[in-house]
């Protein structure tokens, strides 16, 4: 951490590949469209009653945007799935899931940092393990969202209906799961935005601009572990 009157040298490190950044922003934008249109589709307020004489196609249009965004969303999920295994070292699941001693230490460290129990910021190139674990859970939720969504949209396609009946039993159950999980995404958006801004205050890593440029800043004397 910087202290008043003391100069620290930072070096710029490249972390996030263009593929990951494309994933991040297409996922974020499609989520925004999906959440807004999805909330309307779930509970449409009457808006066109006053203009029955004039076609509005409001539900049809918003459903169309929902499905279009869903394809972007699924493509983004596919890109992330690829990067989990074949991305650079910070994008692979081995870097940010609590599966080894190094990562478990990071998980504990971030928990203490977030609970204000310590002021020692953990300098990590990639995701912290706490963040990475949550991202991974959201990634699993995104897969379930994709499968339930596909089942609701194309129940007549043979493999989709086989998958749907095997996993969810009926379209109504798929719809129920689709609805319940959408709260996870709202929840995530709130926490993710807050944590990103909070971290930007706490440590000069430039993580927000890093989501565009792919680079972070680290004190020059910190070594990668």
């Amino acid at each position, binding site marked *: 951490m910087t202290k008043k009157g003391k100069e620290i040298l930072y070096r710029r490190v490249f972390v996030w590949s263009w593929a990951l950044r494309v994933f991040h922003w297409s996922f974020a934008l499609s989520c925004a469209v999906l959440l807004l249109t999805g909330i309307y589709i*779930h*509970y*449409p307020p*009457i*808006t*066109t*009653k006053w203009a*029955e004489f004039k*076609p*509005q*196609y*409001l*539900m*049809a249009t918003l459903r169309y945007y929902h499905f279009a965004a869903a394809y972007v969303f699924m493509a983004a999920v596919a890109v992330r799935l690829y990067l989990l295994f074949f991305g650079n070292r910070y994008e692979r699941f081995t870097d940010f899931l609590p599966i080894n001693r190094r990562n478990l230490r990071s998980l504990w460290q971030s928990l203490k940092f*977030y609970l*204000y129990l310590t002021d020692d910021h953990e300098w990590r190139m990639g995701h912290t393990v706490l963040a990475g674990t949550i991202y991974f859970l959201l990634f699993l939720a995104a897969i379930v969202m994709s499968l339930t969504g596909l089942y*609701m949209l194309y*129940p*007549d396609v043979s493999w989709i*209906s*086989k998958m*749907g*009946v095997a996993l969810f*039993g*009926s*379209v*109504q*159950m*798929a*719809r*129920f799961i689709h*609805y*319940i999980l*959408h*709260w996870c995404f*709202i*929840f995530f958006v*709130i*926490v993710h935005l*807050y944590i990103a801004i*909070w971290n930007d*205050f706490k440590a000069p890593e430039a993580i927000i601009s890093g989501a565009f440029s792919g680079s972070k800043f680290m004190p020059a004397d910190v070594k990668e572990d």
Partner: protein
Amino acid sequence: MSRIPSLRIGGLSRRDFLKICTIATATMGLPVEMVEKVAAAVKSSERPPVIWLHFMECTGCTESLLRSSHPPLARLILELISLEYHETLMAGAGAQAEEALKAALKKYEGRYICVVEGGISTKDGGIYCQIGGRTALEIMREVGEKAGAVIAIGTCASFGGVQAAAPNPTGAVGVSQVIHRPVINIPGCPPNPYNFLSTVLYILTFGHPPELDELSRPKFAYGRRIHDHCERRPHFDEGRFVESFGDPAHQKGYCLYKVGCKGPVTYSNCSVVRFCDVGAWPVGSGHPCMGCTEPNFWDRMSPFYEHLPKIYIPAGGGIRAEAEKVGKVAVGAAAAVVAAHAAAGVIKKAVKSVSGQKSSEE
């Protein structure tokens, strides 16, 4: 009472006969040229013996099939098949009836069609449904294994139905759960008689069962979504919805989505074939679809006037909370936690700077 004997006699006019064959052929999704073939199959084939079993059910399926106000369809079905055992329709009772079943099983072994109406209790050895001292489970296994084909008519026989709804005290299940052979499911509460007739006619005409979907339902009847063939669909696409029963939107015939219509998740041909030969069906009459052709619809489609099932929360003696409320509370809690976290950071910083000032003063 005077009408009942007339159900038994044939005497169907040629016009009625061809009309029903045409509707049934159209239901199967076959072209009009096939009507003759279907009609020929009806006339020439030997009447297949049918053993019709009743288990845990309300006899609504039989009632809707016979519906004496429009007898020709029931007449054709009864003409088409040779009903060897049917507890509601047969004259015999008690020991006589049991004899008839035994005799039919022996005489037509491996050839008869077994039609089942009603769910089957499996808990405690199936003692909750017994006929003539034998459990439904026992009867079903015996009659089902020796049958040429098994058709489950109605949601109870297909998926367990109302008695299989939570907590399912009798362990009720559908037919396909208790016998080890393919079953054709014709769900619905009650199912459309044309779906049953068309299935039987299909087997008679082609000699094999129709194509089935993942839930063993004939695709010609259950392959399409009610929502996609609904007359109120334009109102849905427009965003015009009924808010409550009897409101101006309801009077204008707007979409019933917001009062719990399960049409978007229900597969059946109700909106096309319709009921009672008068073009009536629930959504047409202003009532939302209840999703009765889907598995476990009593649990998953209820509350019937709401969009989604409630979430079961085990704490507090089993609260059934609305899915929306649970989500809103969770997100509200998240927002509160975020705010508290931010406040804690600000307070900590303030405390630190105050104590820092103190220490520097010292």
